[in-house]
């Protein structure tokens, strides 16, 4: 019996709900942990990054305006679709990160469970971080969290799926939209995630995924005047690049999540710091009277 020749997949970008190649026509070789060829991934350009920001901005009104219950349902659905692709994710994580199959399974299970954890926050975070404020006067005064807008995420370089989801889910659960630059050397799980997103109920443009050289794409996002926040965890360990990006981000006072000293242990329960980093607090006053 002859072995069947497999049908390989073309890995592309995920922008505005579509899977384009890079407009630059460029690609780069992705290998497994031992250096063996896995695929050619699209090498996103400045224009791809800008297109992704446009898509994210376009999606922002609808996504931030959706009910929290609806966002929670949509994100839970992503976990369901990911579960169906579990073995594909395991293959890609095992190959890219050089993990044994059991360890890759643990990472993928952790990633799916993290989506579920964050999905549940959609209709709870406002009660934890919002307040009514007992002002000294005849006013009703309350504060509510709102999403900050379009968030650029430089995904972690090592943990290609669990790390990615640990930084992406806290962005979108509260109503922000995202432009993600995937792990440079391990981008394949991110693109497969895009396929899961495209077949779930996440509206087009809410999550946009770019593959390519982080150092090339990041400055365009950090300096983009229609991006409201940036997560620099993807340049962990490269202090000078991180500093330059933070300087770029100051041009329109983006909210900046600085990289930690070393890539964190993504298996630990995340806490609320990442979720609240992309929230604004809005305070509303109204007189009380007859």
């Amino acid at each position: 019996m002859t072995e069947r020749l497999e049908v390989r997949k073309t890995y592309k970008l995920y922008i505005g709900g579509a899977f384009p190649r890079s407009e630059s026509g460029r690609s780069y070789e992705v290998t497994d942990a031992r250096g063996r060829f896995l695929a050619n991934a699209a090498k996103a350009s400045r224009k791809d990054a800008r297109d992704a920001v446009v898509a994210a901005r376009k999606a922002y009104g609808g996504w931030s305006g959706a009910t929290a219950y609806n966002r929670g349902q949509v994100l839970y659905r992503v976990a369901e679709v990911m579960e169906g692709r579990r073995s594909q994710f395991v293959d890609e994580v095992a190959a890219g990160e050089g993990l044994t199959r059991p360890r890759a399974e643990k990472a993928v299970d952790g990633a799916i469970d993290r989506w579920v954890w964050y999905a549940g926050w959609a209709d709870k975070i406002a009660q934890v971080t919002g307040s009514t404020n007992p002002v000294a006067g005849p006013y009703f005064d309350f504060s509510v969290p709102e999403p900050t807008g379009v968030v650029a995420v430089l995904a972690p370089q090592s943990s290609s799926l669990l790390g990615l989801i640990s930084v992406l889910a806290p962005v979108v659960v509260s109503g922000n939209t995202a432009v993600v630059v995937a792990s440079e050397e391990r981008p394949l799980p991110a693109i497969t995630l895009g396929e899961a997103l495209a077949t779930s109920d996440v509206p087009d443009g809410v999550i946009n995924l770019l593959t390519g050289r982080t150092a090339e794409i990041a400055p365009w996002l950090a300096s983009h005047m229609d991006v409201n926040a940036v997560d620099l965890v993807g340049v962990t360990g490269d202090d000078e690049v991180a500093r330059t990006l933070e300087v770029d981000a100051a041009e329109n006072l983006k909210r900046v999540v600085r990289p930690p000293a070393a890539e964190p242990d993504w298996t630990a329960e995340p806490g609320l710091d990442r979720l609240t980093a992309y929230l604004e607090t809005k305070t509303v006053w109204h007189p009380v009277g007859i």
Partner: protein
Amino acid sequence: MATFEYAPAPESRAIVDIASSYGLFVDGEFIDPADGTPFKTVNPATEEVLAEVSAAGPEDVDRAVRAARRAYTRVWSKMSGRDRGKYLFRIARIIQERSRELAVLESIDNGKPIRESRDVDVPLVAAHFFYYAGWADKLRYAGFGSDPKPHGVAGQVIPWNFPLLMLAWKIAPALAAGNTVVLKPAETTPLTALLFAQICQQADLPRGVVNIVTGAGETGRTLVEHPDVDKVAFTGSTEVGKQIARSIAGTPKKVTLELGGKAANIVFDDAPLDQAVEGIVNGIFFNQGHVCCAGSRLLVQESVADDLMARLKRRLRTLRVGDPLDKNTDIGAINSAEQLARIRELSEIGEAEGAERWSPPCELPDRGYWFPPTVFTGVSQAHRIAREEIFGPVLSVLTFRTPAEAVEKANNTPYGLSAGVWTDKGSRILWMAQQLRAGVVWANTFNRFDPTSPFGGYKESGYGREGGRHGLGAYLSSDGAA
């Protein structure tokens, strides 16, 4: 229309005792600067020199930061929250005891009407210290984990528009959370901060917990960039806010920025117009319009624009501009010659760009820095007076037809600090409040402040909140379990 004649009713300034010169407040005492240079602070209503103050140099700033670090390590971080709170309660009480003195001094150094310094600024200052005093021994219930930690030494730089109130917004939460501070008051308004230093002495606050270094922008920059400062808090212009964000890039410093604004005050055709007029006046002429959240863009629904403008102009004719210490005064002096020049320049640009300028007849004093309440009509969104923060008593009026257009125009700015909405319709208020990209929305009111109420901006109006539980969070690191 009849105008009322008022006899002058000046508040006595005998209650304040201004020294001819002041040192820096470092490590619990007033010291002569090591490498600072003297400068003068003037009464903007008279141009009279009030005192000579020192612009702290790098060595002075370093001394202050070292004093704050010592106080943090040896005393303040080890003290129980209960005792930290008790010091803050003491400070709040002394502020109340010396409230008239503080109000008069604030009006003399800043130019704001005594009615505002006495009834708004100083009571809010005391309230802020009371509010945060009570948090000091309750930090683990604040929602930042079971054992939240202070950052360490906070470097705080504040503006001249609410000198003492901004000091309270900065120092009270910092100390309650267990940080020590080095605060730089604005160049033109250092005196109430220096009086606050004496209040710290009266309260027996441990030395070095609060340090006050006077000076201009260079002193502020030195403080913000000092390597041993863990947390930076700044209120001021967006331009300087961006410089600070750049200068601390790549450091572990935490930062909160409360910056400029260009707030829309939106009046719908069903609004109670007389109340709206009061809100518009309060929105832009409170504190001479030297307010980051001032309602500097009035958006009026077209169908009531003529009616509203007639009422507004009638009301503006009754405003009294003059001596800040006169209890009848509504609008005081512009804080500095520099600020007056900026207001004049932008107003001239407004005229040159084709907007129609109007001011009520009003006599301005011969000496000092004054600008009459001014309204521009026929303003388009492209005009600089509709885009740039003027920070003075200048209102730009635009019109709209639909709620969607009002939202579009209101949000068409890089700023996002505050907004006002005037309508009788509840559902529209809540819809507008959702749509406006601003940190504070005042509905059927304007320019309300309270220590329990989080305040701060979206977009280029800065990040972080001051006031309330949220403001406490800016001075704490969660322990990860939050």
